[in-house]
């Protein structure tokens, strides 16, 4: 076969910034503690869709350290651009409107981390998560956490904690719930709770993990869900 002889182009050195080299793999300690906990719940080499993936921190960790096939959806343009520039497969989209296009059971895991409380229709989002993924992993700030209750009860002010850092007038969190509320909704929807873990303020599994105590002492919660009857 003929070998085409190409035009030799002048160097662009100094004219344009060089394409950034890929960064070294993040070490496990580099990601948020709650994300690391989620990562341990995901089987290596599985297919993962991260809904509301932010700058792709969890996806990047999973792709590099657990060999997953990862996809992401993110609302913010900055988050998407950062993820794609980092080599991740992420699309700009909205958990409220863009999940309907994904085929049923297309992923092993669908992750929704700290995003549910900002969706317009959390119930529909949850049903989409368990439809698209064999398992859904959902994390959210627990409004039943004792500091939240304390602030409202004794100070009479809208709570602000590490997990709920916004002032009432600027918060994107429009559908806050407690661990018990969430569990009740799952039950009402016929969604199976495979696992639930409440996290202490350090992002580690809290000591007390049962019912009302978890609801009182967990600052955040991580649930693994599936459609009923599917393990």
């Amino acid at each position, binding site marked *: 076969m003929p070998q085409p002889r190409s035009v030799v182009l002048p160097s662009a050195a100094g004219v344009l910034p060089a394409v950034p080299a890929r960064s070294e793999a993040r070490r496990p300690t580099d990601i948020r503690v709650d994300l690391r906990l989620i990562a341990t719940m995901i089987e290596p080499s599985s297919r993962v869709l991260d809904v509301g993936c932010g700058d792709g921190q969890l996806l990047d960790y999973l792709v590099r350290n657990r060999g997953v096939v990862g996809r992401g959806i993110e609302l913010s343009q900055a988050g998407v*651009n950062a993820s794609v520039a980092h080599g991740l497969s992420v699309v700009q989209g909205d958990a409220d409107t863009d999940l309907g296009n994904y085929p049923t059971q297309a992923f092993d895991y669908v992750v929704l981390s700290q995003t549910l409380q900002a969706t317009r229709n959390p119930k529909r989002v949850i049903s989409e998560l368990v439809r698209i993924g064999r398992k859904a992993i959902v994390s959210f700030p627990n409004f039943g956490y004792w500091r939240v209750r304390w602030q409202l009860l004794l100070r009479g002010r809208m709570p602000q904690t590490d997990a709920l850092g916004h002032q009432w007038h600027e918060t994107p969190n429009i559908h806050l719930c407690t661990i018990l509320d969430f569990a009740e909704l799952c039950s009402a929807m016929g969604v199976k709770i495979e696992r639930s873990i409440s996290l202490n303020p350090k992002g580690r599994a809290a000591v007390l993990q049962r019912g009302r105590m978890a609801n009182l002492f967990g600052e955040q919660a991580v649930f693994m869900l599936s459609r009923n009857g599917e393990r």
Partner: protein
Amino acid sequence: MLPSHRTRADTQGAPEGFAVELGRDAPLKLDCGVTLGPFTVAYQTYGTLNADKSNTVLVCHALSGDQHVASAHPITGKPGWWHILVGPGRPLDPSRYFIVCANVLGGCMGTIGPSSVNPETGKPYGLGFPVITIADMVRAQAMLLDYLGIANVFCVIGGSMGGMQTLQWAAMYPERVFTAIPIACAARHSAQNIAFHEVGRQAIMADPEWRGGEYSLHDTTPRAGLAVARMAAHITYLSEAALRRKFGRKLQNRSAFTYGFDADFEVESYLRHQGITFVERFDANSYLYITRAMDYFDMAAEHGGVLAKAFGNTRVRFCLVSFTSDWLFPTSEMREIVHSLNAVAADVSFVEIETDKGHDAFLLDEPELHATLGGFLNAAAEKRGLA
């Protein structure tokens, strides 16, 4: 006739590019039913094909583009239309990739088109040239790759009509494409876009010098018509914000209105310049044929109106890019493609870039575009085993 690299012996490449005759043994069956062959395809390359032939990047050019992606245009002497993205140290670096771009079927830069001589009549085809489609352009490119001995390409990339070809590549030859990067395009041409094209075509055909498409026989050319077509189209490539930023209501080299129809405003002068310079390098009949090919483009139509079916269980890795101020191929149209790709659980990235530069942004120095393409291509190259 451009030199064929079959006979070239130099090592510095050919600034004017290459040309090859294709379809002598197996002619190209066009969508319109006509069989074409043999026919000439002109193309340009940058970089070197690696030993296992895995580093080809096929660049698809837009309506008024050509194969001179990164090197000086042989007629205007201007830098290649995508020199911003293609070159040493840029996302498409010839030291890493073998970059190929062919002039489209129906074009006027060496590939067969309406200005080519019809061997049956000995005269230019003019309107006797068969109407071609985006899929026909892609088939011709596939024949060129066959000729070059390239079975699979690492990447197909293009903006606007080049993005349409990129999508068509992924749909028609998914097994030959590792990654596809359609930029600022759509899976079908909108009514509004067809309308603008019709204005352009009518401007050309209304020019008495067009002479039923046989202007070259009369040693003339419909300059005014083609210039007006380009002026109208050029507005669609910009945005209101960009026009306001660049020109506003500023007057052209004068301090008061002339109370006439001279180019009082800077924006008028700019558009006239765009029209005049376009005529120097583009053929009016090619403009008719290529705009028609875009109008006919509708990928879902061939699949019962369901775009997702065009992509099936594709393994192609997609990266789509749109621009916020692009009203010719708005983000909503790109998002439709993304939704269809999601529906088949395809590997897809989609970035919308904030800019006021309109559709033209894909040709300009947009740092976000660089970062996106650089990151996506690097990750894909790693997966493909390209150093």
